[in-house]
């Protein structure tokens, strides 16, 4: 019992040290290997290797915001489908396979209504809104 506990603890410590190593390693390696030069690019913003174009203080079209909202209608709700997907093939949840299918279909269908609404209200028309 006692030994098992110690071994478990050892695993935790090992993984912790591994994690710290992974975090510190790149910094140390780059300190050792990186060329010590100073160029105009050194002082620019780092944007995943892309050349920055203009400033960050630009105005975005509000159209993006509406798209993001419609995206949200699905992004969160997909999470609720994972538990269903895990057990759907193995067991019958609500008494019969048909009933299960109908219920899940209704769930997704209700989500789809959100998109129908956005579509009918003209969210997908690309025009400038003030």
């Amino acid at each position: 019992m006692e030994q098992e506990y110690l071994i478990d603890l050892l695993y935790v410590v090992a993984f912790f040290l591994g994690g710290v190593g992974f975090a510190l390693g790149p910094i140390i390696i780059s300190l050792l290997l990186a060329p010590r030069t100073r160029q105009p690019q050194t002082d620019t913003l780092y944007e995943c290797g892309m050349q920055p174009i203009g400033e960050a203080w630009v105005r975005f079209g509000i159209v993006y915001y509406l798209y993001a909202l419609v995206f949200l209608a699905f992004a969160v709700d997909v999470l609720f489908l994972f538990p269903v997907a895990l057990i759907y093939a193995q067991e019958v949840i609500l008494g019969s396979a048909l009933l299960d299918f109908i219920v899940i279909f209704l769930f997704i269908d209700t989500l789809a209504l959100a998109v129908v609404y956005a579509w009918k209200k003209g969210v997908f028309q690309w025009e400038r809104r003030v």
Partner: protein
Amino acid sequence: MKILLFLPELTLLLGALVLFQLSVAGADGRKARLTALLFAAGAAVFSLVCLGQQGTLFFEALRMDFFSQLVKLILALGLVAVLVIGRELKDIADGVRPEYYLFMLCSVVGLMMLVSSAELLTLFMALELSSYCLYLMVPMRDDRKGLRVQMEAAVKYVIFGVLASGIMLFGMSYLFALSGSTHLPEMVPVLAAMLDNPAVLVGIVMVMAGFFYKLAIFPFHFWVPDVYQGASNETTTFIASLPKIAAAAMLIKISTLAAPGAGADTLVVLLTLLAVLSMFYGNLSALVQTDIKRMLGFSGIAHAGFILVGVLTLDVMGYAAALYYATGYVVMSLACFLVICNVSRNGENVQIEDLSGLYQRAPLLALVLAVGLFALAGIPPFVGFMGKFFLLTSALNQGHLALVILAAINTAIAIYYYLSVVRVVYTAEPESRPAIGLNIPTRALGIVLVLIIIALGVLPGSALDTAAMAVRSLG
């Protein structure tokens, strides 16, 4: 037949779907109103038919007993009344009316599921369903002065609501951790056995906080005046009536988790404190209001304190009195808001002085308002008096003498501001204010509300027995 248990909710959900279709098809407000009224009336009829049905649904997440069926019936009837009162929706743009009614029906579905929920997560979902619809209905008011008061009201409503929900979820996590279940029937015996554990009481109080918010009990009351003032008159009618009875019903249901005993004393002391603070805060603030919706908002805080008096007795008669009083409060506030919605010409807020000479401009409205305010003030023979009487008697039976005295003092304070409105209605000159024409459904509803207020007050016995029967069915 299990479907009978869920028939009123299904009717309203179907109505919501039809309204969705109408909204997508771009229908006008009239069609939407007729649809909403049709399905609300259907739901009311079905709730009456299914009043005796009992059973559980959805893996025992919903438990329909006489208590929930009774509250569902009151909610459905209240919805019909709200739709009749708001038949013109003067301050809501025609283009968004289908959505407005859609949210109203969904909110009532949420409230109906709330009162029949027997499982913590279902309870939370139902509460959020009803709340989110209300959050959306508040900013739908037309922006008449460019001040965006409706946005301010909505933002305050959402922020305080989310705070209350957060506290409630935290409390639920305590109760779940201590009892190992989220089903209320399984939690009651486990929690009752360890009521001397402070964590249980903290959990119960935090779960109650969500309903304190809905009912506007003292530390959760901040949203009331601004939301009442910022939302359109029709929206305020809804916010001020239906959620209150659902919240009162849920407070009763949650407090059955804490059976009277050694450990419950702390809970009773806390609830007493909240009740007294709500009453004093509400009544003293209402004294200085000039906007009648704000005044009714503050008076609602005081009445919530009275409902809490019934809950904190922790016995059947107290619960029954609280349910009776909450029902009475719904009818009384509907009567007052019926008048406000009709006096307001273009949907603007009504100041108390706008009611000057209402007696000459619209005698029926003046009568309805007078009866409503007399009842709210607690003057016999109206329902407000009998409700307060039963609440205070049951509190006295449990030995809360100081609370009863303070509540009686509050009744005296409240009489002043209610009756000064009645004075304006009956004695002030109308000056240049025009007469108000009423259509037949509004007239009928006004008379029905007055009759209910009087009937509940004169013959309280059977109503109270029904309430007591409902509370016992929670058992």
